[in-house]
């Protein structure tokens, strides 16, 4: 007689909404005629909003189900909401973009749903196998999405590079899980943590090596250096709304999973992983921000910038404190809003057949569209960490957390690289405020795009002016 495990449905409610919605939508899409695929997108938006509503309803819930492999707690809920917000905004930004570029297919919205479902699963996972599964799910959808501009060769190239790197990294991930299982006899984080103090000799080394490989397998997704090489090429080649989506949502989910693995599963080994991660964070900050300096292609610049931001995000797990976790959530929210706002401006200026996203196309933007320039300015200033935007508070909270954790060198490096970052962000704004250089590219200002951009910009300002409701400085 097999006893079925008791399932706590509140914990999986969000997942059910997303995956159920995605499946139903996949079927419904068959009935929606080509040319009306915007309907699919709006339906997907409804699904995302529904999942978000469920998440808000369960905001205070903590618990585990499915034998402790899935968990929900306020941190997971918060990161999940960031992912859902990113998905919702990305759909808004993409709705008309796809039609404009004649790649309006129903699968887009469904893929985004499956992707965000994978992210939610990754965030909620408390077991390495579930993590692997969810990472595979979100990766595969993102590979397809990166190549969504088929038959555009750049888009296909991006998808292929992403796939190759992903496959390569997944190997490390699986090997890491195997080593950990071998050392501890479990794949559930809680059990691994319990086994931690008893590990000695080579078992300790196996566990540590497994953890390192696990960090590699997750970290490449967050563009940590030296596993970042795919980032500029993929962001550049992928359709812009897809680049926007993957630059924020998958990062959030992966950072949450990394945090769980490191702090819940391997808190015991902190003395080993913390210095290594600190070095990785430092390298990520330096390579990302320095690499962005000479980019003339705005999408590549944003790709390098997102590498640099990942370095900052890593401060959260390194700090290994409530302060660090709070700062991580806030940073993810602020970064999501700012990066999506920046990409929204690019989307508003991108006509079909554009290949190189040259910075010159932004010159003179202020004279043509003060509104777009304002959104761009807010986004870039927030990314640079200038008050009164969300980015300033986020960076401040992160620096505070690592300072408290005893990493003054990381604080100095964070400040120095932020100064370097200001150089390339402000250069773009300078272009936008200056005279026009090339023939004015067309502008697109349909309402979903404007709504998405306005919401993102609003979030930047609100988080910057009133951070108190998401972050407490105590």
């Amino acid at each position, binding site marked *: 007689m097999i006893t079925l495990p008791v399932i706590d449905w509140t914990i999986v409610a969000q997942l059910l909404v997303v995956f159920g919605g995605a499946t139903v939508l996949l079927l419904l899409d068959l009935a929606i005629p080509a040319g009306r695929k915007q309907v699919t997108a709006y339906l997907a938006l409804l699904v995302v909003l529904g999942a978000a509503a469920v998440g808000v309803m369960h905001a205070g819930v903590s618990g585990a189900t499915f034998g402790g492999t899935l968990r929900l707690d306020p941190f997971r809920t918060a990161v999940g909401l960031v992912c859902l917000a990113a998905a919702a905004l990305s759909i808004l930004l993409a709705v008309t973009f796809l039609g404009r570029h004649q790649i309006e297919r129903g699968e887009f919205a469904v893929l985004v749903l499956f992707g965000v479902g994978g992210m939610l699963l990754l965030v909620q996972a408390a077991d390495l196998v579930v993590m692997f599964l969810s990472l595979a799910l979100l990766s595969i959808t993102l590979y397809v999405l990166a190549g969504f501009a088929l038959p555009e060769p750049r888009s296909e190239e991006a998808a292929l590079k992403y796939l190759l*790197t992903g496959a390569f990294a997944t190997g490390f991930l699986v090997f890491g899980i195997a080593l950990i299982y071998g050392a501890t006899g479990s794949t559930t984080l809680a059990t691994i943590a319990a086994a931690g103090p008893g590990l000695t000799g080579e078992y300790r080394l196996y566990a540590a090596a497994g953890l390192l490989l696990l960090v590699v397998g997750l970290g490449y997704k967050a563009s940590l250096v030296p596993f970042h090489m795919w980032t500029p090429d993929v962001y550049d080649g992928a359709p812009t709304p897809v680049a926007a989506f993957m630059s924020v949502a998958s990062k959030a989910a992966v950072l949450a999973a990394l945090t769980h693995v490191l702090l819940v599963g391997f808190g015991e080994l902190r003395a080993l992983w913390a210095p290594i991660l600190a070095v990785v964070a430092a390298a990520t900050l330096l390579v990302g921000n320095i690499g962005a*300096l000479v980019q003339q292609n705005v999408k590549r610049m944003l790709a390098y910038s997102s590498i640099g931001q990942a370095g900052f995000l890593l401060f959260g797990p390194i700090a290994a404190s409530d302060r660090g976790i709070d700062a991580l959530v806030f940073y993810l929210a602020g970064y999501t809003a700012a990066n999506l706002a920046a990409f929204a401006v690019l989307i508003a200026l991108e006509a079909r057949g554009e290949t190189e996203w040259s910075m010159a196309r932004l010159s003179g933007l202020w004279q043509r569209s003060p509104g777009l320039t304002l959104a761009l300015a807010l986004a870039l200033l927030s990314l640079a960490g200038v008050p009164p935007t969300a980015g300033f508070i986020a960076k401040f909270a992160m620096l505070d957390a690592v300072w408290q954790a005893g990493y003054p060198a990381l604080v100095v490096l964070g400040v120095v690289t932020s100064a370097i970052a200001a150089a390339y962000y402000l250069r773009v704004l300078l272009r936008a405020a200056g005279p026009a250089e090339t023939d004015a590219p067309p502008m697109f200002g349909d309402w979903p795009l404007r709504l998405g951009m306005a919401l993102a910009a609003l979030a930047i300002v609100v988080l910057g002016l009133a951070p108190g409701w998401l972050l407490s400085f105590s």
Partner: protein
Amino acid sequence: MSDLRWVIWLIPTLPLLGAVATLLLARGERAAGMIATAAAGLSFVATLVAVWVLQTMPAEAARIESVAWTWIDVASFRVSFGLLFDRLTAVMALLITGVGSLIHVYSLGYMRGDSRPERFFAYLNLFVAAMLLLVMADNLVLLFLGWEGVGLCSFLLIGHYFDRRSVPPGIVPAEAATKAFVVNRIGDAAFLLAIMLIFSRLGSVSFLPNATLGTPGYLERAAELAFVDVQLGPLGSIGVLTAIGLLMLIGVCGKSAQLPLSTWLPDAMAGPTPVSALIHAATMVTAGVYLIVRNHGVFSAAPTAASWVVGVGAVTALLAALSAATQFDLKRVLAYSTISQLGYMVAAVGMGAYAAGMFHLLTHGLFKALLFLAAGALIHALHDVQDMRRMGGLRQHLPFTFRVYLVGALALAGIFPLAGFWSKDEIIAHAWFTAQNPAIALILIASAAVTAFYMGRQVALIFYGQPREAHAAAHDPHGSMRWPLVVLAVGAAIGGVLNLPGVHWLSSWLEPTLAEPEAVYSVGKAVMAVIVTAIAVGGGYLGWWLYARVVDGNIVPGKTDPALYYLGDIWRGAELGWGLDWLYDRAIVRPYRQCSAFLGRVVDGEALDGLLVGGTGRTFVALARGVRAVQSGHARRGLAVFLLGVVVLLAALLAMTMR
């Protein structure tokens, strides 16, 4: 009549609103002039009402205090935004709004055809508001706000013709404005230090105990500190009150153009003539005198500081008078004369002759405003000629201007029975009899002689002798430029009644505020007055005779004064303002500019900007090229870096666990 106390808030608010309304609403010269003049006039009416309210109060408690809100509240540093209207303030406010209104009216005619009338009238109103705030503030910090406000307005109005490269006699308005501002800033810095010292040692910046805030008044506490010292480290020590008094004196030297900070006032004549009359003669420059009178408790307890005040005042009175005697520019004579007369006031209040100082402040406000406005009428009539060498014999052409100018000149020269006679004589008498300081008295008498001389000289140069240039079209002012002159001429003539010996209305009016013993009038003082008047008449006649009769024919535009022959280098030194400008230029301005040029070009340009900033930028751009070079775009390169990274990290881990 306590229900009318609120009227004191109208006094500074009306001109402030006038300034705002002029800037925002007025379009065109007429509207601007009307709004501003109405605001100044209404403020005068409000002052009259306030004085009447004050009059109905018992003499011992004759003051209106009103706190609007707590301006600053940091620990024990509490500052109110409150006004104090006592009898001293009343005198100042009457002068400011009264003469101010007249000058506003005069400006209606004088500024006709100006390219920026809205700006001019708005600033003029703003000045009146700031000056009223200065004299009505109930604490030093608020007073300082007014003090800086009038400085700002002075800067703005001196630079009214900022687009002109040069105005007679060869001053660049923008530079003159900057000079006035910077020189004043030196005084302001010292004044700020004085305020800080007062707060730190006396625990309050309020003049009187403030019931609303619960702060004590520092004036009544001052005497307690008479023998307390501040330590200056290796420099020894100095009495607290002496330090406060000396720092305040530096502030006074800036604002009231006393030596050695007097150099800005002659150049301030680059502003429009009504500005010279209002700000640089009648009101703003007297702020320093008001400050000393307001702080008489401090100065009477600090004899060392007070004697410095007397010394500075007396020396300034004489040296500036000598300078005035050598100028050819119409307004520059009056500017040096103003410095000299301010010297009289400063010397007077330094000796403790507060009522006499205030008396002279009032009469000077009347006759110097008259002289400046009359000079403005002349400049108008002669189409911007200010060089007295190009005038002469104008009394037939401009009989009205001649007469009012003569009244002003006689009053300034201290000729009986005009206003200047009474006030100046009182100061000299105080120096000789009450303060018993014959040296100061003799300096002041000598200055009086020189004053009479330069006014005689000026009247002779302008109105007597041969017409050195034809001014056929010259005509007397009329309309709005005429009757303010009449009013002021009457004031300059009979202003002495304010404080006639034996009647002394002003002294008894100020007595409750200043607690100064009443002046005693003796036969000695009467004899003294006769002697001083005789000297003044002699000096005046000498000046007139010399320039109207003797050297009349030798005066040529562009040439030096023929009288230079008699005095040589002394004359030359006086003409240049005793070389202070030259000294400051060599000792401060040029070294400062060279230092800035060095810092700007070498330190900032080469080292900071070039090496540090530019070098950092170049370094990181080079690094960025390196990053880009690694990023070839080939998938195999990316995976190789990936693998290398994994190997390095694993090696690091191994090294750490092995340890």
